[in-house]
């Protein structure tokens, strides 16, 4: 079995949610507040909502879409916001611009709805990440598999989803390690294609383990 040039160091991340001093009460207000909101707040309500609500596999994509649906009853805009796939983004600036573009287009065509007050305001939050290394690493695929089996949801989320912005690449920690430390490009690509929207963190982890098992068998 191939030994990696660099070990994979498993870590876990815990998140401390901070309440920002910003809120939106209308769709038009959301458009404006999105311009001023911190990158960390945009990250929290998109990338991190995937981790917080990973057990929802149908119809939940990000906090903005959910608010538009539940507090405004505007399924058209909610659907468009929900269609945003965070895997397409390596910078918050691009993501922010697309969110604002979608809301702007909707607001131009639905002026009255954009000014209606929501049942509940949208409160902007952000999260502070605290990472702690776990007391195990992996130098082979077998060791990696054993490590993945021991991971918590937070640890898996940290390596598989939050890592994309940290790496500033269209990839994740696992694929990055497969490609750079083991030279397993195909496994890296297949891992990166695991759908984080239709999977829970548990089923995504299971898919990863199955991919690794197949690689070990070959």
């Amino acid at each position, binding site marked *: 079995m191939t030994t990696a040039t660099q070990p994979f160091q498993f870590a*876990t991340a*815990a*998140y*401390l*949610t*901070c*309440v920002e*001093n910003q*809120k939106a009460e209308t769709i038009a207000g959301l458009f404006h507040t999105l311009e001023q909101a911190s990158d960390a707040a945009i990250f929290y309500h998109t990338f991190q909502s995937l981790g*917080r*609500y*990973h*057990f*929802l596999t149908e*119809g*939940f994509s990000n906090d903005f879409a*959910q608010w538009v*649906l*539940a*507090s405004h009853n505007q399924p058209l805009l909610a659907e468009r916001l929900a269609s945003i796939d965070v895997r397409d983004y390596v910078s918050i600036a691009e993501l922010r611009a697309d969110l604002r573009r979608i809301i702007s287009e909707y607001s131009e065509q639905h002026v009255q709805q954009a000014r209606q007050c929501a*049942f*509940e*305001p949208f*409160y902007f*939050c952000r999260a*502070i*990440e*605290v*990472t*702690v290394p*776990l*007391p195990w690493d992996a130098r082979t695929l077998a060791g990696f598999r054993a490590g993945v089996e*021991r*991971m*918590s*949801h*937070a*640890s898996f989320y940290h390596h598989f989803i939050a890592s994309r912005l940290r790496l500033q690449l269209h990839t994740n920690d696992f694929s990055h390690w497969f490609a750079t430390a083991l030279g397993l490009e195909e496994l890296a690509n297949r891992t990166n294609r695991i759908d984080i929207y239709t999977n829970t963190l548990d089923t995504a982890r299971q898919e990863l383990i199955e991919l690794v098992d197949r690689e070990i068998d070959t």
Partner: protein
Amino acid sequence: MTELFSAAPASLDPYVPVVGAAEVEELRALATPLEGLTVDMLNSTAVGGGVAELLTRLLPLMRGVGLEGHWHVMEADQEFFEITKAFHNALHGSAYQPGPCDFEIFREYNRRNQERLPLDSRFVVIHDPQPVAMIDARNGAHSSNWIWRCHIDLSRPDPRVWSFLQPYVVRYDGAIFSSPEFARQLAVPQYLFYPSIDPLADKNQELEPEFVAGVLARFGIDSGRPILTQISRFDRLKDPVGVVRAYRLVKRYFDCQLVLAGGGASDDPEGSQVLSEVNEAAADDPDIHVLELPAASPLEVNALQRASTVIIQKSLREGFGLTVAEALWKKKPVVASAVGGIPIQVIHKHTGLLAHSVEGTAYQVRFLLSHPEIARRLGEQGHEHVRENFLITGNLKRYLTLFLHMSDWNRS
């Protein structure tokens, strides 16, 4: 000031079957860098109320992962608690006319408590407004971190009370709120800690079916027909009469029963009046069960929730509304009002259904009774939502994360 807690640490092992070994291992990993650090927690009451209940469970777990946690309770006389009760109501928006000495009495009791106890731990967590002025005891070197944990809704406070308390609050290193809606615009960081339930407590633990059946039999409830339940105090803000009206709308289509169970009627004049109104609204319908339970009936509440087909929480105003988390933990479909902390727990169409009126509540209940497979999915997802966000292990994790953050862990 009395230190209440110095009992043996509690192990996280019993939580492994509930949250999984990985989550427990992660809690221990987060606690490792904090091992031996001291934590003082201070509140105003040793028994009764959600804060005391929380600290009773949280401190042993904190000790179990290696922190030296201490729980202290303020000592004060009736005059202090009458003033802080008035503060409490005023912070929730009630009218308040301060007495000439109210603020000075408040300060004086805080001063006396400062003299009784040196709060010299690495982390000091002050719960709620009563001891907020204890920040005066902080030493000048700022070698410790002081955190104010506010369990109440500050979204519409009386300005006189808030302008008195705010100068104390902004001297803390951070404030913790239960919902973004409850927070204020402050110059210090505001953290979000959801309230939590203990899955191993009597109110939430698994029960034998025989026990549940026995409770139903004791109250004359038919287990063979749908049961709609609201668990809450007999309080107008919980709108029990509105629940009866919603039930009557559902009853046109489904042969169901309604259970309204709670306390608060025997020791509260308004509670007994509300109870009379509920009984009047129920009239002589044998399928409406109005149960006034003693304060300590956690197993009965647990059984009633587990036996229910749909749980309702039709509050007009609400704090966080942890009865919703209790119901979700039991995988029950919930129909609840979109007020207070409820929308955080009930993600509409994902972990339950939100409603804004009697008619809306009735419609959502009918929908769930007509679509048991959707009701089951909502219950399952609600259970996962609670597992991820509203269990005491999550609360412990948030404290550990906060302490790591304040220790500059990732910057060291």
